[in-house]
């Protein structure tokens, strides 16, 4: 049993806009690429060229079909990674203290040296956000690119998670959700950002922005014909339209 910090100084997390996520998977491979050579052991792949390839990914994008009652059917693309919960059940369940939530920024991390690969944390996470690396036998999860966001070897503008830096539609945002003045907090306020599965009581830090209402009939009133073309013929129409020059 590991304790959660009472309160972190900052609460870093992601805001993911489902209104603009086109499901392109860019965040998935940028994450895989960075973390394969970043924090902890590499993200291994088993049978990468075989019949059942499977590897460790810290971020995956799923597509769901949605049938609104009053609009055409839709596809919603849904990126899924660790939500860095305030009440993170994966931390409290950890028997060795390997899983912990950082005091200074609230990032949930796994200390791989202390991880025994028991998998309890993955079982406890209601979001399926942790993956056991099959080669290394340690638990892997989103680090919020803790090795990028403070990294003085990177240009300042690059000190953000790899998934945020690469997202082509700008659907992923990173910042301090404890600061009501931060851009991410403002975005959450403006767009009604919501918690994923709040009934689980995990108090996720990451927020999702719902797709805006689609298939609205447009507001422009229908075009009125210039005149009754059947009655006036083409010449009448031509006179009328050119009279406008």
């Amino acid at each position: 049993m590991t304790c959660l910090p009472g309160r972190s100084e900052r609460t870093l997390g992601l805001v993911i806009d489902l209104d603009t996520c086109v499901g392109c998977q860019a965040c998935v491979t940028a994450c895989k690429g960075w973390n394969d050579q970043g924090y902890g052991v590499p993200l291994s792949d088993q049978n990468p060229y075989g019949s059942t390839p499977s590897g460790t990914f810290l971020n995956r994008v799923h597509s769901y079909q949605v049938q609104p009652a009053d609009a055409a059917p839709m596809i919603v693309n849904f990126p899924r990674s660790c939500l860095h919960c305030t009440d993170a059940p994966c931390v409290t369940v950890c028997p060795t203290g390997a899983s912990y939530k950082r005091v200074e920024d609230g990032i949930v991390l796994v200390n791989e040296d202390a991880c025994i690969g028991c998998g309890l944390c993955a079982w406890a996470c209601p979001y399926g956000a942790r993956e056991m690396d099959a080669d290394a036998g340690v638990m892997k999860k989103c680090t919020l690119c803790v090795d990028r966001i403070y990294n003085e070897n990177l240009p300042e503008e690059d000190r953000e998670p790899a998934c945020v830096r690469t997202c082509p539609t700008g659907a992923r945002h990173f910042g301090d959700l404890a600061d009501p003045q931060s851009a991410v907090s403002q975005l959450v306020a403006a767009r009604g950002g919501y918690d994923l599965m709040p009934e689980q009581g995990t108090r996720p830090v990451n927020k999702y922005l719902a797709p805006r209402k689609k298939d609205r009939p447009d507001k422009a009133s229908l075009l009125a014909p210039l005149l009754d073309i059947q009655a006036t013929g083409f010449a009448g129409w031509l006179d009328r339209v050119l009279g406008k020059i």
Partner: protein
Amino acid sequence: MNQPRLNTSPHVSDEVRKTTCYMCACRCGINVHLNSGKVTYIEGNRDHPINKGVLCAKGAAGIMQVTAPSRLRTPLRRVGPRGSGAFEPISWDEALQTAVDWMRPLRETAPEKLAFFTGRDQSQSFTGWWAQAFGTPNYAAHGGFCSVNMAAAGIYTLGGAFWEFGAPDWERSKLFVLFGVAEDHDSNPIKIGIGQMKDRGARVIGVNPIRTGYNAVADDWIGITPGTDGLLILSLIHCLLEAGKVDLEYLARFTNAAYLINEAAGPEKGLFVRNAEAQPFVIDRRTGMPAPWEAKGVQPDLGAVWQGHRTVFQHMAERYLSPDYAPEAVAARCGVTALRIRQLAAELASVAFDQAIEIKQPWVDFRGDAHDTMIGRPVSFHAMRGISAHSNGFQTARALHLLQILLGAVETPGSWRMKPPYPKPMEAHPTPHFVTVPGKPLSGPHLGYVRGPDQLALLPDGSPARIDKAFSWENPFSAHGLMHMVIPNAHAGDPYRIDTLFLYMANMAWNSSMNTAQVMEMLTAQEPDGSYTIPRIIYSDAYASEMVAYADLILPDTTYLERHDCISMLDRPVSEPDAAGDAIRWPVVEPDRDVRGFQSVLLDLGARLGLPGMVNDDGTAKFKDYADYIVNHIRRPGVGPLMGFRGSGDGEGRGAANPDQMARYIENGGFYQAHVPAEAAFFKPWNSAYQDWAVQVGLFDTPQPYLFNIWSEPMRRFQLAAEGHGAVQPPDHLRNRLKLAMDPLPVWYEPFGDAAEPFGFTVHALTQRPMDMYHSWGGQNAWLRQIRGHNPLFVPAKLWQQHGFSEGDWARVTSPTGQITVPVVQMAALNENTVWTWNAIGKRKGAWALSEGATEAKQGFLLNHLISELLPAKGDGMRYSNSDPVTGQAAWFDLRVRIERAEPPQMGESLPAFGAVPRVVPEGSKR
């Protein structure tokens, strides 16, 4: 809390090398991180004009492509029967000598017997130059089976095309409408742009039978019936004209709407009325008299009638005001309600005219008339393969361009803008060159834009000069050739037999061919004497694709991180509307195998063959390698492959070759940009400041202002020929088709594939490219194949219920020419009569170093088996290519099928199943 201490500033990489991605055709800038000489991470280059730092799923997974086990290792020569996979490794010297021994006699006797076709080639200005020097007329890249309708319709109408050659004004546009766009050109800019637009609260409307990707985030979705986009667009035009909501000022000043159409019966009917200097002219509203179209102060009269000849505007308006184009008349056919069509027309008009924008930027047009401001119509469009891969795709793309023009929504603020070297009038493009002289180069480039029947590529007996029958009566405007017809025609000896088929980066034995199974047979077909019908096949690829097994000689290419390349202004550059841009690739890592960049190999072959431009006077090779060519080749005086850092280093567009140029590009992040001045940023075809700038940076040698072609005179010339006028006459069996397809005003006709409907083929079948794969390359990638390793057939709810499908079921899908049995998945957000699947996921067993049990090879499938390169026989003794009759674009999306529930095949394998293709590299194990 006992929190571990972390080093939050770990070492990232020893070095970052900036080059250009090649995981698709988007050509983003990438930062390649290296540690101890190995690639460790790839991210987007923030300074790069295309991707501005972002990168797609393919780009970041490029690290897996550079180490892919499918990489070819060494040149190979076939030693067993073709297709058996029996090869022996040979040296480069032996490989090159073999190729020269095959090619030299052809050049000296019959150059057309070498057919050189390149696939996803990003060096077409170079490969075309090589083929021109060799002297064969048989050269093209893959545009004919990709999206030539979009390119050709754009050039003939606007002097520029969608593709990646233009872009919505992302910053200012208020309404963006996409027709038939999946993950097409150009991918990251569209994603960035849609994100920006939605962030600003601008509206995005998707017109597409399938609601995924961009269409999934569109604010409004029109799930149109495939092949009817043109009809929908012409109905929108009907509504706009009926209400008088068109930009008359724009039409009069910047288009040929005020030209007069000859009404006199005879060989000139339907051509422009011309003056004594053979120039079309307009009637000046100020005087009621003829005036030169380009005269200062002229006010072209759209309503003029002169000696009985009426303007283009009147012909156009009369046609589309017809009740045939009323929404109520087209609704059922398009699968879109009349109200919905009227709403869309109203929305377009409202944004274009009621929400017009104005930029306070004075400018002077080509007539010398000064304008105080730039008025903008903030409606933008983009369209790609969904509308162009139909047999009515050229005319549909033209219809869309007409809609843009009527709204004043091309090259105005907020609308759709062209990227240098476009705008470029059709007249500034070459015509096709095809006349062969043994031992000599062709007199000019192969591909071009024909103005009339006398420029067709025909031999004196009227038969096609090219193996793909490009620029023939069957498809007069085939500006990109017809790669999909090369193997069938070479096999049939129609129009003639060839000797050596030389292919680069084109997977013609699998996903890039229609009728795949038969193409494989054609590649191995033998004559009665045991010789191969296609005698010799040379193939260059970096990977063990399905095509490799069918070659006699394999020239292994490098991966994109191991080579020089040039993304050139002479070809397909990386320009933006506000800047001309070009770029390079350079070897950020050295190959660890005995492989060579294909372009360097081609130069070596050219030198060994003594091709003009590739040898010095003493017969030695002129260029050491492709990098040497990129820097030192001079295409026209002062103009070479790269525009930046010319001369002593400060030459932009023009200047002598600069030996430091490559180093300067590398230092600059791998690209160069020449910025368009602010007063030249819009109205480019007519803007004097732009025209002068274009001359200054070497895009043109003289200003090239022009008018948009609402009425296409080249098309009318073909109609006239079909009506019996002129010396060059089409064969009789093509006359009616030419009269229909070569209409000088945009027209909609039923896609040819619809002829199958009365025989029970009531369902449309499409493919889409996923955002995380680029045709067959993606499926070998260790990361990408974990994201999308199989491709079910998606079936709409109505058909799902009708056929009693349930989860895990299989379907038998039958077209007029083929049958497949494949797994199905239900999908609601889909046109109710359309099924579809992801493109090119399916692999042949044994290819790409994948296991034979790979899902791509077992459940994965291609729709290609259902699509023939020929239309079903009509009983007139003729066979017609399954292509657009204007351009020859492969009509992939005309496909009609019927679908039924099927028992799962034995072994759970999609049908047809093929035996394993012999391996030329071992199966991959670890990454």
